[in-house]
């Protein structure tokens, strides 16, 4: 039953054809099944209690929470050894809002440690496998959430997105991943990675569900100064069949095959598929044009992102020293205790990022690295805003193809050629732009996705374009079928 979307489930609940209790039982059962298959969860909340069915579309419906959200009384680890026993005493605002609307959390999903990673393989409980093909990665960092939604554990799960952490795993798992405008959903209680880039968001199997879940989570929050009042926006009610005259653009330097002299068969198919999708969009009255950019500037997106995100991360995670929470480490002096806690607790990948963050922030390096990165960010955002004066959104393929293999036998190497293709989702974080990925095809029986990014506060427009595109593609509400390897 949980392969259904929110609206279908709500109708069943209202008509008493099922109960919240039985949905939760089924969801828990599927959680254990997927845990055995893909290792998607840090915690399965076996004692989750049903809730009353109200007019709220999500009342009584189970959902999943990425383990970097603070959940009152429930282990919240950020998939890190530093917080492996941390049970918060307060709920993140987004969680509190969902509770208020009657949704029921059934599990906490695995992520790349603290959201820092794009593979789903760096969590302290081990790698998350892709339910479409367990030899493949889900991508990250919202790895467990993507796997669980794709598998049909529930209609929606929470993710967070600092570079592409919702939208890339969504593509690799054949589902919808949506990150609203910065500040639409409060970050209070989201364990920070890089505050100026972090977004809360949601993974679902259809655009409607993304709208419904976000409507329940969003709102101005006195605990987060970067939130804004969106009470006049109802994303779900804004979905309609009218996209006549909407304008999108893509970047020639990213999607034209001629940019890739060494293109793999996969990449060729992926781009071919993208152009087919564009043709379909044109048929429903959406104008799509090709635009050109300064390739050299856009090739620095990844480096600029590394500088900014690592700098903020090293500072944001300085509270993790084992003194107030977390398992305190041994040591002769307090400084030694703090050092040991961090040395033992963090994985090498994170430490590497801390070193980069500290390096770019050092007095003698700031100008060259951190501040230049901030300038790149500003320039790219300005260029995008200029485009958004003409267009409703930017449309591009997600990544260079379907999910790579976990064992690295076909290693994901980012060459100069595909650098922009792999990194362009970061633009959405640089500008705080609303951005949504939906599935748009298969390559080698593996799903691939397409992304639409629009101007700040234009969430309803972006969702509506995605909603209409979704309706002419055959992938809405799809559940991971796929290959199971032992």
């Amino acid at each position, binding site marked *: 039953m949980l392969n259904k979307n929110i609206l279908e489930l709500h109708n069943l609940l209202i008509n008493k054809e099922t109960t919240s209790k039985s949905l939760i039982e089924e969801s828990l059962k599927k959680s254990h099944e997927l845990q055995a298959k893909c290792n998607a969860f840090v915690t399965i909340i076996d004692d989750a209690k049903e809730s009353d069915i109200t007019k709220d579309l999500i009342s009584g419906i189970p959902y999943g929470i990425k383990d970097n959200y603070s959940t009152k009384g429930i282990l919240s680890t950020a998939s890190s050894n530093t917080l492996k026993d941390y049970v918060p005493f307060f709920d993140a605002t987004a969680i509190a809002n969902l509770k208020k609307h009657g949704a029921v959390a059934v599990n906490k999903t695995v992520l790349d440690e603290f959201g820092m990673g794009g593979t789903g393989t760096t969590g302290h409980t081990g790698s998350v496998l892709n339910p479409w093909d367990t030899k493949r990665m889900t991508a990250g960092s919202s790895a467990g959430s993507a796997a669980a939604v794709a598998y049909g554990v529930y209609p929606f799960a929470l993710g967070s997105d600092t570079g592409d952490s919702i939208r890339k795993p969504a593509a690799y798992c054949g589902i919808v991943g949506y990150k609203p405008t910065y500040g639409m959903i409060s*970050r209070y209680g989201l364990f920070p990675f890089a505050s100026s880039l972090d977004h809360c968001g949601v993974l679902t199997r259809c655009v409607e569900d993304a709208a419904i879940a976000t409507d329940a989570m969003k709102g101005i929050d006195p605990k987060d*100064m970067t939130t804004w009042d969106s009470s006049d926006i109802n994303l779900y009610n804004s979905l309609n069949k009218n996209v006549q005259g909407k304008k999108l653009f893509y970047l020639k330097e990213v999607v034209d095959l001629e940019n890739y002299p060494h293109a793999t068969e996969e990449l060729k198919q992926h781009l071919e598929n993208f152009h087919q999708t564009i043709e379909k969009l044109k048929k429903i009255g959406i104008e799509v044009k090709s635009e050109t950019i300064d390739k050299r500037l856009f090739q620095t997106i990844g480096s600029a992102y590394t500088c900014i995100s690592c700098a903020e991360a090293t*500072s944001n995670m*300085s*509270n993790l020293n084992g003194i107030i929470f977390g398992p305190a480490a041994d040591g002769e002096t307090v400084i030694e205790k*703090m050092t040991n806690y961090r040395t033992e607790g963090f994985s090498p990948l994170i430490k590497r990022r801390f070193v980069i963050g500290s390096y770019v*922030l050092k007095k003698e390096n700031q100008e060259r690295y951190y501040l230049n990165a901030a300038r790149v960010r500003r320039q790219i955002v300005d260029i995008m805003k200029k485009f958004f004066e003409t267009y409703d959104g930017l449309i591009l393929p997600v990544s260079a193809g379907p999910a790579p293999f976990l064992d690295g036998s076909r290693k994901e190497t980012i060459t100069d050629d595909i650098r922009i293709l792999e990194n362009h989702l970061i633009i959405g974080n640089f500008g705080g732009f609303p951005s949504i990925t939906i599935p748009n095809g298969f390559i080698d029986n593996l799903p691939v996705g397409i992304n639409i990014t629009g101007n700040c506060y234009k969430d309803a427009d972006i969702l509506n374009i995605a909603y209409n595109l979704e309706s002419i593609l055959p992938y809405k509400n799809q559940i991971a079928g796929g290959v199971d390897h032992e």
Partner: protein
Amino acid sequence: MSKYKAVIGLEMHCELKSNSKVFSEGKNTYNEIPNSNVNPVDMAFPGTLPVLNKKSVYQAILMALVLNCKVPSYLYFDRKNYYYPDLPKGFQITQMHAPIGTNGYLIIDTDKGEKKVLIHDIHLEEDTASLDHYSDASLINYNRAGVPLLELVTEPCLASAEEAVAFLEEMRRIYQYCDVSEADTKKGQIRCDVNVSIMDQDAQELGTKVEVKNVNTIANVFETINYEIKRQTELKEAGRYDEVKQETRRFDEETGTTIKMRDKQDAIDYKYFVEPNIPKYKIAEEWLSTIQNSIPNLPRDRKKEYINEYGLSEYDANIIIKDKDYANYFEECVKIGIVPKTAANWLTVSIIGYLNKEDCQIKDFYLTPVLLSQIITAINDSTISTKQAKEIFNKSLTELKEPNTYINKDNAQINDKKELEEIIITILNNNPSQIEAYKNGRSNLFDYFVGQVMKETKGKANPNLTKEILKEKL
């Protein structure tokens, strides 16, 4: 001072008064019970975010304007990153790039006249937790974590410990007068870092700067500066000036000396960057002028007014402005019609004397200006003597009854000549032998008769009038 002059700069930290902390809803009140004024933000639990306290911003801007500083168009904050057990987040939110006030000045009075102290900047930040060290453990108290703190940085423009202290005292008064802080050193609300160097009187180039951290009372600032001047001078005299290092030291209260903490090359790189969780905030011109207009009458202005308009001595004026509540008391007295000099006398002698003796605050003082005026009116009417006034003042404070209770017919001074004459005649008639002796030259018996009159009238006889009548009759 001999052939050298000292160059001193101060960093003064002052905790601000507010209901909640600068970036959280945690209470900002002095609390004896450790870790009772804390919330998740103060302890940096994962996922917590800072929320700026508007009142603290108001107070910071108020002080920036008092110090004639330039206020930036946009308010924003920076992170100062370092690890220490008293710093829960692992960074302090402060203002490095755009302090709330820059390039200001303050004119103060010193023994040597007026002095313009240049202000480099004043900025808003958060306090750390406090640590208590024991032989086998250290305890952390998070009550102080996140308390709003204003840090004021002067230019190196002070020339002596006396000037530094005069500046700090004036600042402390200003904080109190503006009602932005209690500025109580006993509660640790004021803490200073002191920079000292010496140079030849005629030199152009500054000497080597030594920083002394965490000097927690104004008296210790005085000692620190004088100790450093002495230490640096002695080394220079001995031809060992190269031993004066650009370093960070601390003041040791027990020995009255400064002790080296770390070298300049070990200075921490705080890796400042803009705090991303607090959006830039436009400081509207209208808000600035509202704040400018709310600056109260400052102590130095009041002092001038007391001297020039009320004719007080500088000595009295200085005593009165020392405490905002004294000054307010004084001004209230003047407002209800008490002659300023009389009010000043009562305040500086009897009232402050009483408050010091009883160790209490003028805020809690029973005799309000209105009640005090009952006594003063009675003296002016000659209803009571100054001696009686003193007694009524004390009695009123002991029994907490208004002075008028004791100023009535019963204890009113006897000023009636006829009434006194009758009493005196009776006394003289009863003491013929003493009169005899007096007339035979024992002039000291005059005082005996005065005493008898006072005894008979229970001290209510007007003494001058008594003496006058006695001289007549004897």
